[in-house]
């Protein structure tokens, strides 16, 4: 049966179709839906781990116990998991193990651009890169076969435009369960292969290098790499999504389409070189193929034509290819007749007041940056921090948007958990600028525990605010140890962040309702001014997740004097109409925070009893 699947869904399906029973991951855009998709197939077990390193360690355990397993993460997640990755590169695997990693060229939802193919070189592991949903599923199967054939973990690299693009593929009509229940599995003990103490590790390093040589040999004929004959004038080398763009721009060229992107073959490049007059490499981010080709002594162009930074597109590849003389410019389409306007302003009134006003161009349009959602309980905390002129150290999550206009309430954003460590350093040197760190609940369990205990242990003085909405919201509401349920919906104890802080040695620990404006002011001021280390847990469930919605408040035009206070909380439904504000009922969640900040009581709640609607 033909189904339309996103790249991520296809990768999840591909794992199931390869007989994989176990998947582990940590959510991160653009990778999240891989594990979510996998978890829907019969007889599989999927878990959200507390971070990517834990996920990879768990997947390693499954593999050591003889079963196929995979784990999922975004590119920066692999940095977290890298310690374990390099270790299992040496020990090797028993059951096939695939690490699926989604890169984000163009940084649609990320703090940096990384090319995960580099991890193949660095950790000395094979890397496979699919180019559409069909390959997403097929290459997953190939990755497990490769992993077991050479006893190595395999990285499967995706990018945003693969992960979040949909294309049709043939899927199984009948879905049979992978496991019917939990059987007892015998563990084969093999310390000489699973303990990389120096006496073993020195041998393992030689084995790893030999495996790479063997896999590069296999790469010549493995079917993941293919020569697509075309014109002898031009040979294009490309993989993944860049191949698709190149196919659009160079329809007649000869292609070497790479699916195994590390280690790379040799003979296929020599063959291509014999077939064409000129070789051009089209690769997003780093010049990895290009350097390999040059080392083979073959002449090739690449980054002299195409950019190193950012995401590719058809028009970018075409523009650069035209500039380099590789293809002729596209014939510009022309509008054949005068445009027709239906139900619009008539053409005569088209210029507004008729004045030769500057014609509008798209680049001059007002931008629409992302901001905290209507009803987001992080907003009240950031609003008060802004009012207190606090110096706020943050990291990655929805709450990064506390840095956005008009709140401007966050001053640094580091990697997951970084804000707490950075704050301790800032406080250590004596900055007395109302310093605090903010961290979300999922990030707290991911990377907040170690830096928090570090503050208590080292007699720090810092205040850490945990913005606890009981869910991993940014990536689409995945449960975490604070949510009270697992990925599969099984109930599990909710971890108390307050108890964790007390166990670490914090004695000043408070819990807040973010919507209680006076209480938030009082408690935050008290904690910030206190000389002892402290933790504030601001707890309110994510309203997008709980679908909490009340009727929107209304504005009393008699009372509104357009002071602008409500506009400064940065809530999209509050619309500036020039002489008054208006609240968009469709967008508003009815949280009534604007009601509590309005100094003239001009915003009137629609809630009659002040409680549930």
């Amino acid at each position, binding site marked *: 049966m033909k189904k*339309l699947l996103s790249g991520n869904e296809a990768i999840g399906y591909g794992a199931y179709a390869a007989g994989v029973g176990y998947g582990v991951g940590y959510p991160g855009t653009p990778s999240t839906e891989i594990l979510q998709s996998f978890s829907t197939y019969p007889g599989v077990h999927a878990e959200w781990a507390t971070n990517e390193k834990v996920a990879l360690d768990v997947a390693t355990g499954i593999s050591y116990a003889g079963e196929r397993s995979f784990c999922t993460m975004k590119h920066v997640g692999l940095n977290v998991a890298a310690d374990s990755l390099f270790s299992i590169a040496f020990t090797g695997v028993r059951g096939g193990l695939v690490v699926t990693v989604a890169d984000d060229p163009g940084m649609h939802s990320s703090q940096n651009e990384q090319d995960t193919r580099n991890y193949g070189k660095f950790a000395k592991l094979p890397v496979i890169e699919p180019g559409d949903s069909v390959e997403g599923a097929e290459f997953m199967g190939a990755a497990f076969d490769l992993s077991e054939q050479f006893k190595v973990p395999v990285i499967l690299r995706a990018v945003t435009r693969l992960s979040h693009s949909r294309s049709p593929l043939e899927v199984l009509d009948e879905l049979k369960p992978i496991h019917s229940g939990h059987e007892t599995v015998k563990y084969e003990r093999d310390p000489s292969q699973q303990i990389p103490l120096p006496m073993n590790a020195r041998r393992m390093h030689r084995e790893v290098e030999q495996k790479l040589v063997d896999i590069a040999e296999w790469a010549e004929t493995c079917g993941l790499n293919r020569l697509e004959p075309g014109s002898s004038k031009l040979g294009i080398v490309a993989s993944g999504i860049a191949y698709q763009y190149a196919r659009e721009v160079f329809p007649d060229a000869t292609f070497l389409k790479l699916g195994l992107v590390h280690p790379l073959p040799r003979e296929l490049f020599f063959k291509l070189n014999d077939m064409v007059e000129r070789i051009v490499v089209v690769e997003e981010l780093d010049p990895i193929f290009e350097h390999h080709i040059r080392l083979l002594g073959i002449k090739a162009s690449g980054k002299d034509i195409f950019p190193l930074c950012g995401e590719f597109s058809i028009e970018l590849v*075409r523009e650069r290819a035209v500039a380099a003389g590789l293809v002729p410019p596209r014939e510009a389409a022309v*509008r*054949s007749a005068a445009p*027709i*306007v239906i139900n*619009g*302003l008539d053409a005569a009134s088209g210029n507004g007041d008729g004045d030769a006003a500057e014609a509008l161009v798209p680049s001059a349009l007002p931008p629409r940056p992302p901001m905290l959602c209507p009803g987001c309980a992080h907003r009240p905390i950031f609003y008060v921090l802004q009012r207190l002129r606090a110096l706020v150290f943050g990291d990655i999550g929805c709450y990064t948007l506390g840095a956005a206009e008009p709140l401007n309430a966050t001053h640094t954003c580091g990697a997951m958990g970084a804000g707490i460590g950075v704050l301790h350093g800032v406080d250590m040197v004596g900055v007395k600028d109302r310093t605090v760190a903010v961290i979300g609940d999922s990030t707290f369990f991911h990377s907040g525990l170690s830096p928090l205990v570090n503050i208590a242990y080292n007699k720090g003085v810092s205040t850490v605010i945990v913005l606890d909405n009981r869910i991993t919201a940014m990536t689409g509401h995945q449960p975490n140890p604070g949510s009270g349920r697992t990925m599969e919906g099984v109930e599990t104890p909710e971890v108390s962040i307050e108890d964790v802080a007390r166990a670490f040695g914090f004695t000043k620990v408070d819990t807040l309702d973010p919507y209680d404006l006076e209480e938030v002011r009082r408690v935050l001021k008290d904690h910030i001014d206190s000389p002892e280390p402290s933790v504030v847990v601001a707890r309110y469930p994510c309203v997008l997740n709980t679908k909490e919605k009340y009727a929107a408040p209304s504005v009393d035009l008699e009372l509104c004097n357009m002071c602008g206070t409500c506009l400064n909380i940065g809530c999209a439904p509050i619309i500036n109409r020039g002489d008054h504000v208006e609240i968009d009922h469709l967008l508003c969640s009815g949280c009534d925070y604007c009601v509590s900040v309005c100094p003239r009581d001009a915003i009137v709640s629609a809630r009659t009893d002040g409680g549930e609607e």
Partner: protein
Amino acid sequence: MAQDKIDFVLAGVGGQGTILASDILVDVGLEAGYDVKKSEVHGMAQRGGGVESQVRWGSRVYSATVEKGEVDYLIGFEMLETARWIEYLKPGGDVVVNRYRIPPPPVNMGTARYPDEAEIQNLLLTRAGRLEWVDATGIARELGNPALAGVVLLGRLASHLDIADELWLGVIERLVPARFVDLNREAFRRGTELGD
């Protein structure tokens, strides 16, 4: 297949239903016998920011993202976001735009101005061969749910494409929850009956 390729961009604001509308468009293309790919961006972009879906129908589609300046149909759920994507339209292409404004943060903060309708029309006419304004959100409100605006716009689009209404309605029936099917059929019908 009537044409070798047809590219669509659907542009709006997070929460307006561009994803459902593009899912419908994808399935209609598949049922009409095209190879189809679709691309969209999730995550940070959804938090009140602009959202866009790109859908491509063709005999063989490689890239899931469209080429700037080659798009056949721009379907705008919000005026400003429609204007933002106009450079993707091929000269002479079709624009269907919802007459609906959601002011972005800089406008609310008073640091930028929302362009007036004439300015937006002029900008769209720098490329459009046919520009159709639709009061889709108004019609959707009449039907009782502003979220139906996307299906009203699809109804409008359908009257430009050579594909039977039954095929569209069949896909809509399959993709929307059962209790909303009648409303969505009605929204689609209202869209097809506008103009012309």
